[in-house]
């Protein structure tokens, strides 16, 4: 009996020594990898993908069915489309104000309702456009912009907290959309309407994927080619310092909310086109939460300041991948959010600064407890001057 205990003990102490060695060898490369700001988001995405590969061996298969790319990856990218577009706007709003835009879902509904109303005229179910298609799209987007401008005025000029300011449209938005459509679901039967959210004939890739990627590129260009990105970050980090160096903090905030509104409009049009109807009670339901989570998962601080569009894109795809995976694992829709919340809590905790610091200390403690003989490989202290 005693012998067994001793052996187990010996086994474990050996195991620990092996781990210590491993740590000390891997320390520098690990620190390099984990030091990168996109490390955690990418890691999570990889983990989700690995899980998928294990459960569905044909995960990477892509085939062409009915003239459309199909397979797991295209379908995740397609389903992530609206979320991705919303996340872009949310990233800017969070960075500039340290607050969130809760009203993106309702704005989607409002934009789509205007568009649907113009296309259908007084009918609820028709296949002839009553007004030019382009005009309807334009008005839909304009509605999104106006909603964003409303939020922007509340936040930047009236100094209302973003959460509260956008709560107004969050609660009222869907009712406004219902007012526009007289409380009915509008069915748009004209196949042209499906171009935006499904497929343009002859193009083998879902339009949602294309549009969402197009907007990723547009927003990236906007942020990189003008100094909007720098302005947004400056205002988000320290509003009064930003004002004193000559930035118009209010205008920058306003602009971020307008862009967010416009993007919500785009997402609304895409979303309603995907289902061929406008149901203002359903469209973009609780998408704001997913978008906020996507921003956080992308390694962006929710208290504003620095942001990374690339991070947010990864975040959005990760959220969608998690959702899709959970569905694939036969999780019931009503339980979906529980699992999602669990996964996300773990990820967010793991990427928090405090947690990282704890881990670092733990590693250091393990390393410094290595017996003297093996100390050569473990330079814990001492300075390596790199510059």
């Amino acid at each position, binding site marked *: 009996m005693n012998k067994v205990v001793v052996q187990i003990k010996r086994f474990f102490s050996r195991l620990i020594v092996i781990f210590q060695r491993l740590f000390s060898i891997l320390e520098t490369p690990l620190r390099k990898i984990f030091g990168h700001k996109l490390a955690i988001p990418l890691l999570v995405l990889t983990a989700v993908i690995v899980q998928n590969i294990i459960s569905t061996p044909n995960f990477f298969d892509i085939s062409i069915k009915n003239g459309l790319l199909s397979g797991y990856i295209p379908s995740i990218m397609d389903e992530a489309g609206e979320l991705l577009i919303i996340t872009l706007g949310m990233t800017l709003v969070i960075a500039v104000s340290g607050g969130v835009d809760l009203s993106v879902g309702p704005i989607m509904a409002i934009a789509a309702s205007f568009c649907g109303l113009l296309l259908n005229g007084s009918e609820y179910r028709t296949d002839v456009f009553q007004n030019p298609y382009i005009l309807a799209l334009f008005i839909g987007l304009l509605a999104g912009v106006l909603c964003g401008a409303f939020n922007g005025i509340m936040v930047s000029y009236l100094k209302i907290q973003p959460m509260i300011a956008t709560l107004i449209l969050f609660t009222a938005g869907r009712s406004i959309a219902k007012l526009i459509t007289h409380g009915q679901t509008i069915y748009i039967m004209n196949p042209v309407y499906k171009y935006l959210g499904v497929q343009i004939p002859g193009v083998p890739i879902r339009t949602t994927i294309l549009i969402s990627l197009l907007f990723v590129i547009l927003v990236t260009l906007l942020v990189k080619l003008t100094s909007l990105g720098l302005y947004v970050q400056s205002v988000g980090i320290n509003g*009064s310092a930003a*004002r004193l160096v000559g930035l*118009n903090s209010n205008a920058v905030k306003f602009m971020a909310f307008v862009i967010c509104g416009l993007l919500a409009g785009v997402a609304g049009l895409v979303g309603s086109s995907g289902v061929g109807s406008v149901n203002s009670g359903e469209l973009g339901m609780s998408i704001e939460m997913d978008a906020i989570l996507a921003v956080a998962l992308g390694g962006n601080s929710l208290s504003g300041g620095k942001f990374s569009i690339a991070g947010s894109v990864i975040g959005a795809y990760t959220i969608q991948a998690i959702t899709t995976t959970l569905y694939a694992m036969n999780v019931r829709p009503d339980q979906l959010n529980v699992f999602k919340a669990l996964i996300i809590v773990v990820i967010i905790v793991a990427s928090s600064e405090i947690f990282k610091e704890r881990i670092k200390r733990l590693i250091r403690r393990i390393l410094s407890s290595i017996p003297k003989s093996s100390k050569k490989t473990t330079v814990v*202290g001492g300075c390596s001057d790199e510059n």
Partner: protein
Amino acid sequence: MNKQTDDIQNPALTMNGIGKSFPGVCALRNVNFNLRRGEIHALMGENGAGKSTLVKVLTGVYSMDCGSVRLDGKSIMIKSPQDAQKQGISTVYQEVNLCPNLTVAENLFLGREPRSMGLIAWRKMNIQATELLRELNISASPTAQLDSCSIAIQQMIAIARAVNTKCKFLILDEPTSSLDADEVRRIFALMRHLKESGVGIIFITHFLEQVYEICDRITVLRNGELVGEYEVRNLSRLELVSKMMGKEIENLSVLSSEKEKVKPADETPIIEAVGLSSGNAKVAPFDLKMYKGEVVGFAGLLGSGRSELVRSIYGADKSVIGKLYVRGKASRIKKPLSAIKKGMAYLPEDRKAEGILSELSVRENIVIALQAKRGMLRRISRKEAEKYADEYIKLLSIKTAGTETPVKSLSGGNQQKVILARWLLTNPEFMILDEPTRGIDVGTKTEIQRLILKLASEGKSIAFISSEMDEMIRTCSRMVVMRDRRKVGELSEENIDQSMIIRTIAGGDGNNE
């Protein structure tokens, strides 16, 4: 008896072989430091020498890479600032960490509020705060919101907060950098009192005078390494400075000879204010003329309205009344951007709250004002920005790992230089410098004073505020004197000397207007 002297002579707190590096920089390398009870120990060194880092390692803000800390001979591990507090080590960090939107009393007792039945006893807290404030001679109301107090008062409150807990060791990281002579005296009285009761104090400062006035021993750091530990009385000022800089230096006060005699002829002033005032009555309406090529100092006690006066020229606060002429043309300046476009620059007094954009890189912090001046659509390319950043890093010898380092990881003095660089880059004609040398080391301070004189000789007009009278006397060709939020007089070149200024501030003669 013998044992007691032993206690005082033997260092109570010793740090041995401390090493700490950050990505790209080695902040401390094999540093030894010790502190006795009942002594005031100065920690000196240039900007970025590693003083604040040493303190932060001691108090558990950073974990050290190697080395050990002993308290009364026993090895201790300090894991966090709270832990340090429990061991009796209280700290006032360089960047004051109070909550601006809480009251004075709340800030004093934050985290250890007096409670009754689990609830915060507000009345009791305010009474205790009043006592504490009176004891330390701080003129602030316990119920006032913190951000309504001047920086000096905030600094005093931060110290009060630290000594409030029963502390055996007190660390003060540049507590006097924004204080005037009077307040420094008050803080010194407090420090002496603590010293007598056996508290060991680490005092970080860039003011040599203060070190010689109050300290017992000095430890000098340079580039993260220990230079040595000295008794104050055995080390002359000149020796101290050359130990810090690592090279012999000539006398520091040769500057005044470089001051150029400017005769602002009858040309139009660059800036002319007539009855200008900030609408919120923080400063009474004033008249002021600023000419090309002159450095005008603003003297007055803290809270005398110096900062408010210059801010109203720059449009930093909303609703300005009165008239402002820029190069003879009537201008309405409602926001900083229009001031910048008219060739003004403003380096604010409060670096943390109004100066640095902490998470952004050194490069972004340097180009931001120029970018704002150009407008959003005319982006300064990455390459161009890097060129500017490199240029100014060299010019002001900013100590940083690179242009992409976040500015918050620079030492306090180097952050200040970054902000100075930001404004120099916009090539202004009229510069407002509110405490530009705050937290800057002795060597660099002279460099900056030289730079100011050089800028003036190139034809810029400079408004200069400093709580160090010496510095202003050395650089200014004219002095505006303020008292009680009112401009009370102007001293011209020949009248600028210490006693004259003090007399005018105090309300004696001086050509009142």
